[in-house]
């Protein structure tokens, strides 16, 4: 009895510790269908568009690599060329890591932004940047998936576009991972891209 009583306390401590460890491990391991899906931000999703070479390009084409995606249009004086310029500089700064991610520019002005114009326009930027256009319905569906707002605004002679200027940072599964925009400081944006590539 004396012997048994002397191990009772250590045994209790051990069992308690073991239980805490077990519960912690269970909480940390993401369940296949529980916490992993629950924490997914509902931004992004499947789309079917056309790239600057006139070839079909779907969201499946981006699977396996993280990507930075933003919406804009070529008749845009500031935000779009600036964002493309910034991301071109970022790709250069990332060095080899740049090949482990994609950068995607989706037009919100499919009427004017033909694949040919997208190709010409993107020739001024990093050649790895993918430019996407499509039918108005296809663009609307892609914009909806990314919760992007865009609207035609009439001007004296034609129209311009209002649009969400967010750069969406998506992981290798196509899930939302973070965001940036053209107003964010270069070092902060670049750090986000490095992290995106690292996490895959």
């Amino acid at each position, binding site marked *: 009895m004396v012997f048994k009583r002397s191990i009772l306390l250590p045994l209790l401590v051990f069992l308690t510790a073991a239980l805490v460890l077990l519960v912690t491990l269970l909480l940390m391991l993401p369940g296949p269908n529980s916490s992993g899906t629950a924490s997914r931000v509902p931004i992004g999703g499947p789309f079917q568009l056309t790239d600057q070479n006139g070839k079909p390009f779907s969201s499946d084409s981006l699977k396996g690599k993280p990507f930075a995606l933003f919406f804009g249009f*070529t*008749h*845009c*004086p*500031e*935000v779009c*060329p*600036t964002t*493309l*310029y*910034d991301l071109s*500089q970022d790709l250069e700064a990332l060095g080899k890591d740049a090949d482990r991610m994609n950068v995607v520019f989706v037009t919100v002005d499919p009427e*004017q932004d033909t694949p040919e*114009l997208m190709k*010409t*326009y*993107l*020739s*001024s*930027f990093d050649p790895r940047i993918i430019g996407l256009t499509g039918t108005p319905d296809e663009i609307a569906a892609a914009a909806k998936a990314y919760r992007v*707002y865009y609207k035609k*605004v009439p*001007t*004296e*002679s*034609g129209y*311009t*576009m*209002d*649009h*969400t*200027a*967010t750069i969406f940072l998506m992981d290798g599964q196509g899930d939302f991972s973070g965001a940036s*925009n*053209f*107003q*964010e*400081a270069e*070092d*902060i944006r670049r750090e986000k891209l490095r992290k995106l590539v690292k996490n895959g």
Partner: protein
Amino acid sequence: MKPTFSMPSLAAAALMLAVSPALAQSSASPAAVKAGTLTIEQPWSRATPAGAQVGGGYLRITNTGQEPDRLTGGSAPVASRIEVHQMSMVDNVMRMKAVDGGLEIKPGETVELKPGSYHLMFMDLKEPLKDGETVKGTLVFEKAGSVAVDFAVRGMGQGTGKETGHGAAPAQHKH
């Protein structure tokens, strides 16, 4: 890692904005253009990507007269025309609209056309604007009439509203 600004430097920056017409004349930048009671300073544009149909134009206009004037638009050999637009950023949405009836420059005020705010739009560009070039343009004001202005074209990464962090606010500085 965030850039920090001391109060003295902020005050200096504010002072610079307030007295900029005087400073600009003594600096190395192109001479200010005078037209009646208006002074137009530091006109610049941004290099445009291949195939781009539009380009932005930026400058500062000071009205030293007693009457308001209005910038209604203009022309440029490189474009079909120049329009006055206003950009703003609200909740990550970039909004763009034409300034109906022209941009008013009140007596004694300086209006800045800059990234993220009021700006000129070179419409239907005939060729891309290249870094280092000078682009000729003519601005049209209701009272001051037509004014020839040379725009210095800067690199594509220039002037994105990052510097101020207040890109959305249209600037009108009182003297």
